């Protein structure tokens, strides 16, 4: 890769009347997908790609190349030179990133090698045997990626990155009625995967999933949101914390900087170097990432500002992209939190959430992978999946209790290069959660 970087640097010198930004990435995945306690398919995939954005004054043109070679990129630049003069200028032109600082080096193990397919199948076979004892089958994905690449530009940015995330999602599905529960593991370190703990936790959920299924009518409920559920709500909340939405007039946090927006117990930070999470060293433009407080003691502290919007809106740039969200913890155990719910719900996971209006953070979405009825402090029934229509701002504002423990959760962008990120979230208790209808299915 170093040779390639040197060649591109010499290209930038050769065409010094232009400015360039290059992205280069080699992405490998070993992707096992399983259903009904058996293999669906195994995929080995390797994609190498490069993209180049070329600037001449306030004019720009971009191209991308699969399986890039120096000759292909050189040709792309020659083609771009023949095009760029014909394009109009962008009066809002912003110079590319100039942050040349380098993130601390982290040791990365290639998890495609440390977790070969044989090992994955051994793990899944064992979990499947436990599930079968309870008349459940397992469905899901076991993914190991290895990604390396660099960002290089004419302002001296030269950042190399390497990452090798693991993601295991196991859904246990009842043979009898398709009730589904989920357990996940994600992170950079296979040694942190404890198979026994993982299996025990999943089987505890399977036991809950054996409770009788009931429907829940529309109405306001006190709910316990799992770490995955509150994590997804906070992920959507971050839409309004991007400077881009401020520029577009759709930010929930417009005019809220340094103002109290949530209760004092709410703390949300983006922590790209948290050791429990998959690290993110650099932003897409090559800016070195640092911890960023977003909400501190209920006060909105920072927008996430990339190079473009930082220049355009005259804001301090940080490059954060909410890929490593951490919610501050509280003082309760989840059992203590459930024990004080008289008539409410436990929500394991959200599905197909979408904004009705991003400015006021109104959304609609559904529950999946285990929704449970709580009566007098105990989980007593499985509930059909439910639809909620809510404001995320109201939900965060109505958090009354937060769990002491936090859980590292994987999520994937799924499309493109299947980027896997992680967040660290506790259970939370929320008042008056607005259920608008039942799906009548599980």
């Amino acid at each position, binding site marked *: 890769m170093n040779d390639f970087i040197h060649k591109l640097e010499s290209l930038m010198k050769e065409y010094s009347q232009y400015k360039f930004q290059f992205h280069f990435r080699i992405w490998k995945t070993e992707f096992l997908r399983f259903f009904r306690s058996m*293999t669906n*398919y195994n995929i080995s*995939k390797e994609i190498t790609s490069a993209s180049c954005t070329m600037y001449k004054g306030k004019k720009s043109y971009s191209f991308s190349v*699969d399986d890039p070679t120096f000759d292909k990129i050189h040709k792309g630049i020659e083609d771009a030179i023949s095009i760029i003069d014909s394009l109009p200028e962008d009066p809002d032109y912003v110079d590319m990133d100039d942050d040349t600082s380098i993130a601390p080096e982290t040791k990365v193990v290639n998890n495609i090698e440390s977790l070969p*397919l044989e090992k994955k199948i051994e793990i899944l076979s064992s979990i499947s045997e436990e599930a079968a004892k309870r008349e459940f089958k397992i469905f899901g994905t076991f993914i190991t990626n290895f990604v390396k690449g660099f960002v290089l530009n004419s302002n001296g940015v030269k950042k190399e990155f390497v990452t090798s995330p693991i993601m295991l999602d196991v859904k246990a599905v009842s043979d009898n009625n398709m009730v589904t529960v989920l357990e996940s593991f994600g992170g950079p370190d296979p040694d942190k995967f404890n198979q026994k703990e993982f299996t025990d936790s999943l089987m505890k959920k399977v036991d809950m999933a054996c409770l009788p299924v009931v429907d829940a009518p529309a109405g306001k409920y006190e709910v316990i949101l799992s770490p995955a559920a509150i994590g997804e709500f906070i992920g959507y909340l971050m839409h309004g914390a991007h400077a881009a939405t401020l520029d*577009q007039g759709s930010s929930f946090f417009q005019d809220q900087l340094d103002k109290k927006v949530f209760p004092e117990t709410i703390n949300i930070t983006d922590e790209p170097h948290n050791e429990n999470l998959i690290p993110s060293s650099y932003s897409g433009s090559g800016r070195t990432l640092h911890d960023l407080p977003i909400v501190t003691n209920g006060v909105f502290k920072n927008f996430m500002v990339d190079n473009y919007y930082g220049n355009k809106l005259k804001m301090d740039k940080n490059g954060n992209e909410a890929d490593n969200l951490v919610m501050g913890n509280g003082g309760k155990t989840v059992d203590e939190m459930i024990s004080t719910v008289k008539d409410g719900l436990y929500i394991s996971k959200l599905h197909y959430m979408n904004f009705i209006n991003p*400015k006021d953070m109104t959304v*609609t979405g559904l529950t999946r992978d285990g929704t449970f009825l709580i009566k007098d402090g105990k989980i007593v029934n499985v509930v059909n999946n439910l639809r909620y229509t809510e404001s995320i701002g109201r939900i965060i504002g109505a958090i009354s209790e937060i769990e002491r423990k936090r859980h590292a959760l994987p999520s994937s962008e799924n499309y493109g290069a299947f980027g896997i990120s992680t967040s660290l979230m506790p259970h939370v208790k929320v008042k008056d959660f607005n259920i608008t209808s039942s799906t009548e*299915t599980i």
Partner: protein
Amino acid sequence: MKELVKKTLNMLNAPDVQFGDVRVTVTDNENIFFERGFLKGAASEIAATSIGVRVLIGGTWGFASTSDMSSTSIEKIVKEAVQNARLGARFKNSPIEYKPVDGIVASYHFDPIKDPFKIPLKEKVSYLGEIASKMGKLDGIVHSIVHTHFYKQYKVYGNTEGTLVDTTVYDARPSMMVSAADQNGFQTRTFPGHMPAQRGGFEVLEKLDFINNIDKIAEEAKELLTAPRVTEDQADIIINNGHLALQLHESVGHATEADRMFGMEISYAGKTFVKENMLGNFKYGSDLVNIYTDASDKRGIGYHPVDDDGIPSKRVDIIKNGVLVDLQTSRYTAAELGLEPSSNMMATHASEFPLIRMSNICIAPGKGSLADLIKDTENGYLLDYTKTWSIDDNRNNFQFTTEIGWKIENGEIKHIVKEPTYFGITKDFWNSCDRICGPEEWGFYGTFYCGKGEPGQVMHLSHGVAPMRFKNVKMLPGN
């Protein structure tokens, strides 16, 4: 490329290979993007090439792919695909059965009227720039976007049954959007809606006549800021094509994909409420509702001569006179269900594993114009242009908000309404249909972005629809 596919197929000669196929795709993409009147992105990806090898061994699939087209790399992925299948077969409780079909040799090459990849970028930028410039100067509009995506793909599919098919297609996806914001909130209008993609080249963009639709959507966006909301909790609604395509897509298209029934998509996209025992007797919709999949209709962007499972394209009725009669299937799922495969197995690129995907899912037209239907509606709403969409894991409970609605009283449009939101249960909703407009209102509406599978794929597909009326639909009344 055909020779490369044949040569690679010849490598799949191990005695335990039950079936194998090889695909090569060469894809061109060009995106031109203006924001607030200024060019923000002109980007191309030309001749992105990949090869994928799929093998069935011991009743288990193995797959490998690469963008490196060297012979060494291709030999490596053949070995990886075989190894993946053999190892994967260790975690198995019932093998995949694969009923053989006769091989097919065919070619299809679409010729656009105006090949966008042969038009100089300057001309395309100039055409869109005029539109963007007008949008960027609109009073009361805080944000505007014009975007066009041109796409071309050459594909070769070959399998161990002797099938060898090559195709070339061109698709275009033009769209524009304006946003208005004030103390009353933030409202957006798009044109031509959520599913603007069509088979074709630059002529697709020209036919849409963006320049003469700007003022209309800008005025509507501004008017929406202060427009009233729906007040009823139940209403008759007419859904126009700019949104109906998505209603069909989400609550019939995905629901009738057989892989969801088998749980093959539980880990990401979800399941379906449709069960095997519903075939032939489940009343999915009213008697008027006839829905079919037709990968053989060349007008839609879901057309293909043969799918990525080696099945020739065909028309298959899914819902006939309201009754569920068939599903979108692969060879494997069709065999398990005692059905014929419907030619719906597709992957976006050769580097991806084929899945059951919608091709052209269509509602058969009824009778009459939209104007007639409005006249025939005593009290209700006309809804159009998708704003928010959400549907559950089983495709049974949906909720949609459209960008705009029009109140209808005594057969006349009275005024617009803001963020009309309706919801329901799939079966009840389709059974409440009492009118479908005729062929004169029927058209194809396509997308580039139907997401499914892991690693995720976004598929090009389309829907043929004509406006429909639904009675007593549940509405979410606003303040």
